[in-house]
């Protein structure tokens, strides 16, 4: 079991399957190669999906959230962040925090599960799960 990732475009179509050396069941290593792909495709980018290779509700970890935030700051645009477990998928997106709200774990922004404007195809979701378990 290993986490993997998928870069997809603004229509939800796969651009790049991310299966780096050093991935584990709970982490993907930082990758200059992945950054160059994200930067190269920034104009057409829809988001980045990754797996949590177990069953149950997909929720982002603190590392997930700080990465969402950093990448959106670097790329200058908001993205969609699907998290896929072996039996569920949730799509996360940035929600701006109002001054009186204090629920964001990292402070300024929060990422919430949404009904997404685009979705990954069933075949890509299936492949994410297959590649995470082989």
């Amino acid at each position, binding site marked *: 079991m290993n986490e993997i990732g998928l870069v997809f475009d603004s229509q939800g179509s796969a651009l790049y399957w991310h299966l780096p050396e050093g991935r584990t069941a709970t982490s993907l290593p930082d990758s200059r190669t992945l950054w160059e792909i994200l930067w190269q495709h920034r104009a057409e980018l829809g988001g980045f999906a990754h797996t949590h290779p177990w069953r149950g509700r997909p929720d982002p970890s603190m590392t997930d959230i700080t990465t969402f935030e950093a990448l959106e*700051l670097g790329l*200058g645009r908001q993205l969609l962040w699907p998290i896929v477990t072996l039996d569920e998928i949730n799509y996360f997106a940035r929600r701006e925090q109002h001054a009186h709200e204090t629920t964001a774990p990292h402070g300024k922004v929060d990422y919430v599960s949404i009904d997404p404007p685009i979705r990954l195809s069933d075949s890509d979701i299936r492949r994410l799960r297959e590649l995470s378990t082989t």
Partner: protein
Amino acid sequence: MQQNQARLNITINGQNGDFPDPVAFALSDTEIKRIAAEAIRTGYVPGIDPVAADLAYFVVDRFSATREMPARLMLRPKTPFGEPQR
């Protein structure tokens, strides 16, 4: 540029630019991020609009000098889902 110096390249807000001055290659990531944050905030980096930015979750890629290129430090956001060095 002296042997122990590097060109600092910064990417933020979909923009990319070089810090105008050479910096010491041996600076820590924390020090590089401090310099970059101040430069970005004050509009000192050509090609990058001024903005107050928290670079805590950015990382520094380090490339030694080659015959053709000076040493380079490249500041970018971490990717899914690595952690920056402190």
